[in-house]
C-alpha cells in the first residue's frame, strides 16, 4: 500500500471529469503528490533527530519537540492529500452503481459516465467536499503553526527543562519554502474546484432554461 494506490484512484476519476477536473488531477499529481514523494518527505525525515536544545537535561528535547510539533507538517500534508482525493470516489461509486443497474435491467442511460441528473449532484457534492477539506487543512496549518511560519529558534520552558532553553529547528528555510509551495498549490486547487463548480452550475442552468423555453413554445 503506497501512494501508487492514490495515483490509480485519481486516474480512474479522470475518466469522468470535466476539462477543469482533469487539470485538477494533473496539478495534484505533479505539483503535490510528486513533490511530496520526491522532495518534501526527505526534508522532514530526521526532524526529531536534528532538533537540538541547548541543554543536557534528558527528556527536555523530547518534550519541547512534542510541544512545538503536535502533528508534523509532513504528516498533515499527507493527510491533506489523502482527504482531498477521496471525495472523487463518490463519483466513481455512482458511475459503478449506474452500470450495475444497467446490467440488471435494460439500457437506462445513454452513457453512464455522462455528468447529468443524479451524477451531476454527486459531482457537485464531491467538489464542495474537496474545497471544504482543502480550506479546513489550510486553517489547521495556520492555527497549529502560527501562520505558516517555521522559526529557526524556539524557546521552551516545559518540565523537565530546568529553565527557558533555546531549541533549534533543522532546515527551517527549506521547510518554509516547501510549506509556501504547499499553500500555493492548495489555493490553486481551491480556485480550480470553485471554477469547475461555477462552470457546471452555469452550464446546467442554461441547459434547464433552454429546455423549459422549448417546452413552453411547444
Amino acid at each position, binding site marked *: 500500500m503506497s*501512494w*501508487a494506490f492514490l495515483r490509480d484512484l485519481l486516474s480512474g476519476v479522470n475518466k469522468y471529469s470535466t476539462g477543469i477536473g*482533469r487539470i485538477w488531477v494533473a496539478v495534484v499529481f505533479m*505539483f503535490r503528490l510528486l*513533490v511530496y514523494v*520526491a522532495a518534501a518527505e526527505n526534508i522532514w525525515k530526521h526532524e526529531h533527530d536534528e532538533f537540538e536544545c541547548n541543554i543536557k537535561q534528558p527528556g527536555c528535547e523530547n518534550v519541547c519537540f512534542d510541544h512545538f510539533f503536535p502533528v508534523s507538517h509532513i504528516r498533515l500534508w499527507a493527510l491533506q492529500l489523502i482527504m482531498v482525493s477521496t471525495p472523487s470516489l463518490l463519483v466513481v461509486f455512482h458511475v459503478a452503481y449506474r452500470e450495475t443497474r444497467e446490467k440488471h435491467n435494460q439500457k437506462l442511460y445513454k452513457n453512464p459516465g455522462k455528468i447529468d441528473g443524479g451524477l451531476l449532484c454527486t459531482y457537485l457534492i464531491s467538489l464542495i467536499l474537496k474545497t471544504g477539506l482543502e480550506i479546513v487543512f489550510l486553517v489547521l496549518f495556520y492555527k497549529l503553526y502560527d501562520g505558516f511560519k517555521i522559526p529557526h*529558534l524556539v524557546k521552551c520552558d516545559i518540565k523537565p527543562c530546568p529553565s527557558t532553553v533555546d531549541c*533549534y529547528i*533543522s532546515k527551517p528555510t527549506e521547510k518554509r519554502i516547501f510549506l509556501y509551495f504547499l499553500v500555493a498549490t492548495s489555493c490553486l486547487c481551491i480556485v480550480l474546484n470553485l471554477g469547475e463548480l461555477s462552470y457546471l452550475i452555469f452550464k446546467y442552468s442554461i441547459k434547464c432554461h433552454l429546455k423549459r423555453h422549448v417546452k413552453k413554445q411547444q
Partner: protein
Amino acid sequence: MDWGALHTILGGVNKHSTSIGKIWLTVLFIFRIMILVVAAEKVWGDEQDDFVCNTLQPGCRNVCYDHFFPISHIRLWALQLIFVSTPALLVAMHVAYRRHEKKRQFRKGDQKCEFKDMEEIRKQRFRIEGSLWWTYTSSIFFRLIFEAVFMYAFYFMYDGFRMPRLMKCNAWPCPNTVDCFVSRPTEKTVFTIFMIAVSSICILLNVAELCYLLTKFFLRRSKRAGNSKQQPNHENKEETKQNEMNELISDSCQNTVIGFSS
C-alpha cells in the same frame, strides 16, 4: 508514486513529439532523473548529519547549515525536473481532447470520419500542425524558461557551482566565527557540474526543436501560399500522404532505437 509514474505520463506524449523531442525525453529520463534517484540522492543523503562545525555550542550547526543551504541542491533538482516535465502535460491534454472529439464524431456516425473503429482512433498519431503546433511550441517555450530560471536560481543561491570544503559561520548562537565542514564536497561538485551540463544540453535541444518547428511552419506557409496561386489540391493530397508515410516510417525506426513504446 514516484518518478516511474512521470515516465508513464510522459511516455504517452513521446508518440506525438518530434525526433528532437524524443531525444530530449531520453536525456531527461536517463541522464537526469535516473542519475538523481540512483546516485545524487545518496551523495546528499547524509548532508546535515555529516555537516560538522568546530564548536560544541548546541544549535550552532543547525543555524549554520540553514544559512548556507536555504534549499538543498537535491530538492532544487527535483523541483526543476518536475517543473520542466509539466509543459509536456499540455500537449498530452490537447491530444486527449482531439482524440475525444474524433471519438464523438465516430459515435455520431459522421461520414467525414475516416477511421474504421475506436482502436484506430486510440492508436492514431497526430501530426504537429494547427492548434497542436501552438500548444507544442508553447510547451517548449515554457520548458526553456523553467530550465533557465532554475539554472539562474542555482547560480545565485550557491554563488557558482562549486561546493567549498570549509565555510565560516558566525550566526547566533555560534559564539564567534566557527569553521564548518561540508561532507563530500568534491563528489557534490562533480554531480553539480554534471547536472548543470545535462541541463545545458536540454536547453540546447529545446532551442533546436523550437527552431525546427518555426522553420517547418514558415516553409509550410510559403508552400501553401505558392500552391494556392497554382493548381489545387489533388497533387498536394498525394504528396502529403507520401510525406506522412515517410515520417511515420522514420519515427517508428527511431522508436525502436530509443526504446520508447507507448
